[in-house]
């Protein structure tokens, strides 16, 4: 079960990387199109969909890698039982929130499909298609939180993914 789940997170991470690559290709094609006089209809919208897909699909892998940032000033100072309670609270709240969020993302996909919601841009894409990436990504995040929560409940005081502040090169 565990290995199948981590396979899921990795797969989503890879799809996110592919979406990022797709964004690059769309924008480069758009620049080339302007220089050589061909027109890519709705390139802006497609680039928007693909960065959205990159962001949402990477959620679970980012969590597992310890890259999502949080304020750890208090957590770091806690030990033993206090620390365990706070960690459990964070994981439970995370699972609950992302579960709630994923439910409403699927609902949004469903409504876009039923009401034939179409992009306002030149691409006229039925919106439920790109929105699926969002629902999938957030669901994977919810599963990852639930997975961590169950693991934490099961094996007592042992700590998992340590937060690595230095990993955040982005700042």
């Amino acid at each position, binding site marked *: 079960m565990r290995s199948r789940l981590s396979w899921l997170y990795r797969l989503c*991470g*890879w799809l*996110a*990387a592919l*979406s*990022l*690559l797709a*964004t*690059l290709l769309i*924008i*480069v094609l758009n*620049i080339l199109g302007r220089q050589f006089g061909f027109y890519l209809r709705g390139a*802006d*919208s497609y*680039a*928007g*969909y693909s*960065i*959205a897909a*990159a*962001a*949402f*699909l*990477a*959620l679970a*892998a*980012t*969590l597992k890698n310890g*890259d*999502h*940032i*949080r*304020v750890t*000033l*208090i*957590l770091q100072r806690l030990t033993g039982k206090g620390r365990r309670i*706070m*960690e459990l*609270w*964070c994981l439970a*709240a*995370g699972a609950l*929130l*992302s579960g*709630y*969020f994923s*439910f*409403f*993302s699927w*609902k*949004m996909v469903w409504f876009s499909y039923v009401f034939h919601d179409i992009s306002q841009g030149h691409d006229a894409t039925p919106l439920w298609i*790109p*929105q699926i990436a*969002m629902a999938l990504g957030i669901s994977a995040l919810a599963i990852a939180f639930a997975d961590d929560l169950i693991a934490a409940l099961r094996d007592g005081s042992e700590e998992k993914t340590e937060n690595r*502040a*230095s990993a*955040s*090169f*982005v*700042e």
Partner: protein
Amino acid sequence: MEQIFISIFLIVILFVILASGLWIGLTLLAVGLISMEIFMSRPVGDSMALTVWGYLSSWTLTALPLFIWMGEILFRGRMSEDLFRGLAPWLNRLPGRLLHVNIIGSAIFAAVSGSSAATCATIGKMTIPELRRRGYPEKMTIGTLAGAATLGFLIPPSIIMIVYGVAANVSIAQLFMGGVLPGILLASLFMGYVVIWSLLNPDQIPAAETGLSLWRKLYEARNLIPLVVLVLLVLGSIYTGFATATEAAALGVVGALIISRLQKTLTWDSFREGILAAARLYCMIALILAGSAFLTLSMGFIGLPRNLAAWIGGFGFSPLALIAVLTIFYLILGCFLDGISMVVLTMAVVLPTIEQAGIDLLWFGIFIVLVVEMAQITPPVGFNLFVLQGMTKHQIGFIARTAFPLFLLMIGAVLLIYFLPEIVTYLPSRMKGR
């Protein structure tokens, strides 16, 4: 009255949940949910999904992941070695000698990198061991690096500017250009500090190395060519109006890929690691942006920004007093939060006040970048401090103390751009294709 009470209640809730260690993006979503639940009867989950989708699938944000990716590619290349080799021979005569490599290297790398911590890690990778080996005083080596690396935000491209530009609806290309002169100004202030310090403490700086001939120096400078080409490609295409910020980011990624291919540092492994790391870093920011988009919506329902603007307007602050108050506010916030969270959390609330006071939003963006830079080096939470702690194994407190003089210089830079706003606005006003 009731609204004020609810606003205070929400702010307290926000900080309690943040302090409890819940991930920042999720905290923002949670507080947004709580405040919407108080005011609306229908399920708020629907508007949450729609708001977040709309925000994260917008075209203006596309520049962000691409610049992050470009930084990841360059970090895995040999930019830091190139910079050191190209710059070091020229700085031997200047008081402070190779300490200036930290500052000029950071400033140049900042022109291809949108992030301060990435600049810190990339430059420090080379300068820390090299300067240590030559016997430079540790506190100067680390202090100048911690401070100068924050130029990663001020000198375009800049992740903070993209986030601010999207939040405040200011042109990202103009913000980028607005950061150029303040960035050069700040780098010069840092260099001036190193020169003065070295003149006062001449015995602490190691002797000059045997000078190279001019021809040899020029030959070494060839190492800088790839970086300079990349800077011209990215910033030049924006300045001349050839490309938007997003397109310049795409050109930058392609350029960085080609350069690392030519330098033989681009392998399938480094490509894969780079793109996966970029996706994760962007995702980390995107979760915070998602939370802030929803929180902004719900704050609007409560009328918090409007009330705050009216409240602060009631004091009749002069713009200078307002900026002073905001500087102190952001410095305190910066002790506990990272820059991006700081910007997205406060923008919705602060912008109406700024507009009411008649402060230019482009100028304010550069001001925000400067205070975020200070937040990078204020303990206990400052990302440059974390990066340097990882690289040098010194205590956070020690690193922060070494960077303190540069922190003061940044406050000086805020004052300078306040009294001479043209430092910010001159280049954007000259841009083509505005």
